[in-house]
């Protein structure tokens, strides 16, 4: 009797924490077709897209613009009549980060809900933990923000796509940017995961001066030893490749006298944020540069995104998220099926070769007329290669003008073919 009571207490806590972790999901998930059925028979029901984006964790600041991109695309697609004349449905889901198990639970619930495609995750590390599960279930795994080169050649049965370029591209641009700004001896401080190590590797290859790589554990209690190692190299430029913990790394850099006011500092897509550094000493971020994949987010698109989420301050990966949803919808429309396999088989075709179109409504009309389309999105001219990676991309260069504000250096944007790993 005693034992069963104890177990009840334990179970109550376990259930409570599970419920808590899962409470962001909508209740409509249960009434769904089984996933296996969809994989074998061509699905023609309403297109369901599950999102696997960071509401919590070290990339949570990227969540709002990505969700806004998805929501905006869904709203515009439905306004244009939906897919196969049925409205499409967005099932929200949190990806957490690699330190939590949230992504697995979200992927499971999306698969159970019978989605045709999952949009996410933001972190390459998180995507790598669920890619087998999602591609194994015959569902398209489409990330708007993964940049790790490891995902290029991953055995995903062709189900993995992304609208962000591999870090072979960002690394080359970042390294070149640092050299062009006069850096000769650089330190690359990167977090220890697929994204951090990959980007640092290609950044170092792109930078032709001397460089030192310092890898840190993002879950470390503090970063003094890591920064001390960076300081020992006496750098004239520091690139920080990380997520939310970048704030902690920056405070430690300032403490040890190599902060952005002393040494030229560079950030990347994972830590380009307008909110994270606002409490640091006034204007210390001024002049810090950062790279972010994607063409310049123009004011018209920003306005549309703000209509979905008026609280947005960053727009990182919102265009890529928007394009991911539109491409999935177009692939379903062209293949006349809303299941993962149909979407997979049509994604490359709608992204390249054919009559160019830039909105879902236009592209849908062309498909209805039997024309082969080539969707060019708000994030650039997306053309998938055989691995589901964009073969051509644009890399943006941004510069902080205040701690909480950065501006595009549009003249320094680089567009070109994504280099092979």
């Amino acid at each position, binding site marked *: 009797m005693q034992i069963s009571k104890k177990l009840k207490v334990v179970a109550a806590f376990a259930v409570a924490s599970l419920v808590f972790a899962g409470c962001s999901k909508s209740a409509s998930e249960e009434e769904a077709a089984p996933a296996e059925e969809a994989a074998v028979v061509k699905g023609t029901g309403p297109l369901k897209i599950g999102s696997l984006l960071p509401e919590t964790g070290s990339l949570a600041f990227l969540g709002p613009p990505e969700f806004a991109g998805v929501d905006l695309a869904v709203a515009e697609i439905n306004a244009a009549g939906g897919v196969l004349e049925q409205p499409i449905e967005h099932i929200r889901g949190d990806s957490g980060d690699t330190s939590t198990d949230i992504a697995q639970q979200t992927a499971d619930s999306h698969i159970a809900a019978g989605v045709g495609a999952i949009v996410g995750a933001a972190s390459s590390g998180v995507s790598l933990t669920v890619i087998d599960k999602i591609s194994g279930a015959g569902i398209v795994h489409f990330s708007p923000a993964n940049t790790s080169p490891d995902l290029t050649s991953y055995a995903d049965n062709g189900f993995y796509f992304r609208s962000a370029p591999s870090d072979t591209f960002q690394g080359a641009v970042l390294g070149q940017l640092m050299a062009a700004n006069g850096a000769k001896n650089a330190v690359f401080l990167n977090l220890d995961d697929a994204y951090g190590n990959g980007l640092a590797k290609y950044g170092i290859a792109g930078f032709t001066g001397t460089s030192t790589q310092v890898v840190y554990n993002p879950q470390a*209690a*503090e970063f003094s030893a890591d920064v*001390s190692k960076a300081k020992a190299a*006496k750098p004239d430029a520091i690139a920080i490749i990380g997520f939310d913990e970048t704030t902690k790394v920056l405070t430690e850099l300032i*403490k040890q006298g190599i902060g952005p006011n002393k040494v030229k500092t560079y950030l990347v897509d994972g830590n380009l944020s307008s909110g994270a550094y606002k*409490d640091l000493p006034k204007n210390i971020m001024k002049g810090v540069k950062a790279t972010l994949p994607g*063409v310049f987010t123009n004011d018209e698109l920003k306005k549309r995104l703000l209509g979905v989420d008026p609280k947005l301050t960053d727009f990182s990966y919102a265009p890529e998220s928007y394009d991911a949803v539109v491409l999935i919808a177009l692939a379903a429309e062209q293949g006349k099926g809303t299941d993962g396999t149909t979407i997979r088989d049509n994604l490359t075709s709608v992204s390249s070769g054919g009559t160019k179109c830039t909105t879902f409504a236009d592209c849908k009309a062309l498909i209805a007329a039997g024309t082969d389309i080539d969707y060019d999105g708000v994030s650039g001219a997306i053309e998938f290669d055989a691995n589901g990676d964009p073969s051509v991309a644009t890399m943006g260069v941004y510069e902080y003008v205040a701690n909480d504000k950065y501006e595009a250096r*549009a003249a320094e944007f680089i567009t070109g073919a994504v280099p092979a790993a």
Partner: protein
Amino acid sequence: MGKAQLMRKIALGLAGFFLISSFSISGSALAAGTSSILAGEIKDSTSTPLPGVRIKLTGPNGFATQLTSDQMGKWQVKVTSTGIYDVTLDQTSLPSGQALTDVTKATRKINVLMLGTTLTVLFPIGPGTEKTPILDQSAQLLADGLILGIIIALAALGLNLVFGTTGLTNFAHGELLTLGGLLTYFFSAVAGLPVFAAIPVAVALSALIGGYLQDRLLWKPLRKRGTGLIAMLVVSIGFAIFVRYVFLFIFSGDTRQLPQFAGQAGLEIGLVSITPKSIMSTSVGLLLLIGATLWLLRSKMGKASRAVADNPALAAASGIEVEAVIRSVWILGAFLAGFAGIMVTLNQGVSFLMGQDMLLLIFAAVTLGGLGTAYGALVGSLVIGVLIQLSTLIIPTELKYVGALLILIIILLVRPQGILGRKERVG
């Protein structure tokens, strides 16, 4: 930045934006020019230009050319197609006594991604930047190690006292640090109190909520029901996760900084940079540790708590009010852990995962020093803190916990009871 310069930047930005948007609408290639320039400056380690150094380039479509650096050490080549160019410096053409920093890197692969750009190709020459000597690095690491050690010690003392008096291995102890940090953040950044005023309030509330109320509402009822230690351990794990996500729900997931103290520059004291806020908080932390130790040694309640830790049944039989002792141990533990959390928050900010990130170190310190012994926790904490930092002189920083935990394993192999633990407590 001057106003004119700013205007120019804005103008440039706008021009570039129109260029890009017009291109993407027309859908044509985004090429912004017809040629790119590869350029470099050959200079020795004293920045003296080196003229006459031969540079060879090969690239796509059979592109090949050779040139020498001019009087200023400069060279540049125009290329008209994108792709990877191999730029090779002829090492035999360097003046005698000059050599590349890395002689294996005479060939640089330059990726021309887009035409219309200028790419800088560097060939570092000379011995390279001299790294800071190991001794100087060690001083900084030792200082940071001691600070980390004091933070761990503040947290570990409470964990160990609770374990000693109740036998509970509390996996929710890390959340007490987060509580202290978040309360300070709340009272300073949200409620607008000065940080100096927010800290005492936060510490008091930590002791009340994290110590008194936690024991009263959760652990005391479980003890009364005679819940087993393993079951309580599992409850503490569940409780930790629950509390962590409550923090996440209220404060969201990003790292918060205390407004008046974020990014304080360090003072250079000898070989060490240390921030004023860190000096102050560490001094207070040290005083609190000394105070807690004296309390344990001298006060009646302190002595009673050691008696309960030694043998609860005997202590109760000899008239010690065990529940009162446990309550005061909880309050003291939460008080110290709350301050440890505030130290971390002052130094680098607070996020809902702070306690989780620290928990492993706290447990390592407690185990190393000796489970259930108050002074063991102090010794273990300082050893762990300093070892973690100093080990990075030898091992890569991303593995810094590995070195410290390896030493933990070795010490436990030799002394299974921990440094100050007593033998009979094990097994």
